[in-house]
């Protein structure tokens, strides 16, 4: 299978180690993943702010870059969800939207990973990012009935020594929301503070999730509050030891 790797703009700029972990993990699992150079952004921030038309050139570029791959893997649920659900509305005959996967989905559903080499003897609290829960189906939304499942946790349990917790409100929004964080800074801050408090209450040393934008937001709040809790993207934990 030909796999293309898309590393979101903010991961490129702020959390490249998440990209590195993704790349190394896929390589370890025998996946021939290509990172086409010249990538920037999937277009989500402008669209969520209300300027979807401004995203079009980026959508077209993404389509050009990735349409011939079998899968496109992204270590970010919000970007993956945007490509999957919004691209078809922005671009006619979009091919890439069906091929795009968040890295957790890809590992869990496509590669069906059943073993991982790493150790992570720490307590982690899982941050179930909204796009992952309600758009990509990474976990069962708490609003709906039915059997509970969580692909993030399934994969984390493959790492030895780990203890996995979830906050009391398992999938309440952290309050980042892209431009929401700057347009409604007080509500965003309050949401972040509440979410952080719930994660901390689990006794975890690390907060982990499938999207760096949520983690960035919570980390920003944590540092402002002088809280010591650490942050890692899920893929970093899954790639532990590599």
């Amino acid at each position: 299978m030909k796999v293309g790797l898309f590393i979101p703009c903010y991961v490129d700029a702020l959390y490249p180690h998440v990209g590195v972990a993704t790349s190394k993990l896929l390589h370890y699992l025998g996946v021939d993943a290509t990172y086409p150079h010249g990538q920037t952004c999937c277009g989500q921030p402008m669209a969520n702010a209300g300027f979807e038309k401004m995203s079009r050139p980026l959508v077209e570029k993404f389509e050009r870059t990735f349409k011939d791959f079998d899968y496109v893997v992204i270590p970010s649920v919000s970007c993956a969800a945007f490509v999957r659900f919004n691209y078809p509305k922005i671009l006619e005959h979009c091919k890439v939207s069906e091929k795009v996967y968040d890295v957790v989905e890809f590992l869990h559903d496509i590669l069906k990973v059943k073993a991982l080499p790493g150790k992570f003897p720490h307590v982690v609290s899982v941050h179930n990012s909204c796009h992952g829960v309600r758009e990509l189906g990474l976990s069962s939304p708490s609003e709906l009935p039915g059997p509970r499942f969580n692909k993030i946790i399934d994969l984390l349990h493959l790492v030895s020594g780990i203890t996995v917790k979830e906050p009391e409100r398992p999938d309440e929004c952290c309050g980042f929301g892209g431009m929401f964080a700057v347009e409604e800074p007080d509500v965003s801050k309050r949401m972040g503070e509440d979410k952080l408090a719930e994660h901390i209450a689990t006794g975890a040393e690390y907060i982990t999730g499938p999207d760096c934008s949520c983690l960035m937001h919570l980390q920003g709040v944590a540092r402002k509050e002088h809280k010591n809790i650490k942050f890692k993207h899920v893929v970093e934990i899954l790639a532990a030891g590599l």
Partner: protein
Amino acid sequence: MSTLHAKRAREFLKDPAKITHHDQTFWGMRMSRDKMVTQIPEWEELRDKASEIKRHTITHLADYLEEFSDHLEKNGVHVLWARDAKEFNQMVLKILTDHHVKKMVKSKSMMTEECGMNDFLKARGIDVVETDLGERILQLMHLKPAHIVVPAIHITRQQVAHTFEEKGMSQEEGNDDPTYLTRCARNSLRSEFLEAGAGMTGCNFGVAKTGDVVVCTNEGNADMATSMPKLHIVAMGLEKVIPDYASLAFFQRLLCRSATGQPTTTYTSHFRKPRPGGEMYVILIDNGRSDFIANPDHWETLKCIRCGACMNTCPVYRRSTGYSYSFFIPGPIGIDLGMLKDPKANSGNVSACSLCLSCDEVCPVHVNPGSQIYLWRQQLDHFGTANSEKKLMSWGMARVYNNYFMYDTALKMAPLLNHVPEAIIGNPKWSPWCVGHKMPVFVRKPFHVIEKDLEKEYGKESTTKL
């Protein structure tokens, strides 16, 4: 860069304990709803079918309204059609003055709130008495509802006690026990029910096949309001009509579970005819609905059954309160309805959403209020209400992302920001991000630079260049 909602929310958030209480109250209601949902294995099927029944009914609305009104008229009910709020208020006034009514008791109706009926009638000498306890408390305190189902949830028992004492409804100074206060209201409202010349109700569902006006309450106030006064007036939005009893079963099962986490309201009353010796009027109100239906992106907002589940689950509503919104209905559905009704006036609410889509998951009829907010955002530019700073930021980002040289350069320069003094870069005046966060740290080597080393590590040839 502050929208109306953001400005108001800031003020409310200055009292963190109050917001904690507000947030926990509504989260509790969301939890109660969840508990109900786990007890109904067919819940998703109910939602899906309820949504389809509504889609069918709304897209055949004229047919069903015709059927509904025909039955009503056959049963001796007067049916009136109000184009807008103004016409509705005039109609109510005329009915009341024709019948020499000076006092009207009413049960909860968001429709009358929409039309500003109470103030209109009050200014013309009619005493309108709210009989839903929450609405009555607000009426006595001259406040507006903060939620469509539990409008006075933000009022403390002390405030209620004080108000009741002021109004002579409570004789025990300082007694703020909710049971005692409810009894005071019961006694006071009992006199109102007995004295009133007319009773007004809203309508949760109008059954086209039989002409039933269905009103759901926990207090029984709609029934009290219509069992003593001989004149019954129903205020009903056009979109409340549904085909038949088989359809009604779906909505009855979904409504209260979604709203408060109860399996049913205490009373689900069907009014088909006037009382013996009485008269009944049903006023069907358009007030824009016949226009909303033409909106290809947003007509499904008309499916809303006013349960309030979306606001209970909305993390933004819970932390900003109903008074942060410019429309009389708050929360996700309020943002959508406000934009349908008056986009220019209500654009300031559209920022009140992190697009978490929890509301989409709880809406019993798949209005998808959160997804609709995303669409409304795309249209703000067209209404001329897009935030110009946000637009500039978005434009700026798009420019940088579309030009790789600029992007690469920006990333190379970004680490400089790490050295800007906290007093400047961390100042909320310059950077709204810093209201709640410390700035993130920009790395010296972004991924696209490191990647080249990884490729060497893997022993790869140079990768595809764009």
